[in-house]
């Protein structure tokens, strides 16, 4: 075993990175999904719509802008999978789950901010995704991805 590592240092480093990436990435993803689902259930009462609301006169006390954002990147193993996918085409599942997680996290952060400031609902939600980081300008490579959610939080005049 040691002899193999000694003889092929590059290959063993590559394999080690893949194993680390796969195990840490999978554990982190499961944990993250669990926390997302739990927090989504807590915040389900705070309404979010992506239409411009119409309010009766005197119904609204104040309104303000809220936003939430997340920057994520994929692990080593999944990146390799995605590169392999590039050859055959088709769904890149590894990235689907990553972006889904990031977007839901961004919405949750926005809702948390709105709740701490006492809002009753959020109107006109907008979502945005952009690539940043070292490899953002290179072709055929995905660096870190930023997802941003923003909207207008509304505080109502409740009787």
């Amino acid at each position, binding site marked *: 075993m040691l002899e193999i590592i000694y003889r092929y240092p590059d290959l063993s480093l590559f394999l080690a*990175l893949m194993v*680390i*990436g796969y195990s*840490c*990435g999978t554990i*982190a*993803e499961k944990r*993250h999904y669990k926390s997302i689902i739990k927090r989504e259930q807590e915040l389900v009462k705070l309404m979010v719509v992506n239409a*411009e*609301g119409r*309010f009766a*006169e*005197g*119904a*609204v*006390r*104040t*309104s*303000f*802008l809220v*936003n939430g*954002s*997340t*920057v*994520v*990147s*994929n*692990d*080593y193993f*999944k990146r390799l999978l995605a590169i392999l996918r590039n050859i055959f085409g088709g769904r890149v599942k590894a990235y689907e789950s*990553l972006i889904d997680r*990031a977007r839901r*996290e961004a919405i949750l952060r926005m809702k948390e901010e709105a709740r701490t400031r006492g809002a009753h609902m959020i*109107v*006109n939600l*907008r979502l*945005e995704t*952009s*690539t*940043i*980081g*070292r490899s*953002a*300008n290179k072709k055929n490579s995905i660096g*870190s991805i*930023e997802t*941003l959610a*923003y*909207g*207008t939080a*509304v505080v109502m005049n409740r009787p």
Partner: protein
Amino acid sequence: MILTNVGSVPGKKIVEHFGIVQGSTVRAKHLGRDMMAGLKNLVGGELKGYTELLQESRQEAMDRMAEQARQLGGNAVINIRFATSSVAQGAAELFAYGTAVRVE
């Protein structure tokens, strides 16, 4: 200063329009954060350093936009939109724009 991203200020009447106001900032992260992000790239997941950095810069862009609206004599900015683009390696531009108005 009231900031909203809907076409009006909910519950208030707009009395005067001042046109487009904008604010932008170009930021690069410092070396330590960049190295940590590089390490984090290995295992994937959220890059907290970048998230904080971008939130700070976005706040700054919004402050600049609000300042511009204040200079024009407005007390609210409506229909705000955000945009992000990477202008150079390791630097990102954050851009916010909206319409400056005066409400009652």
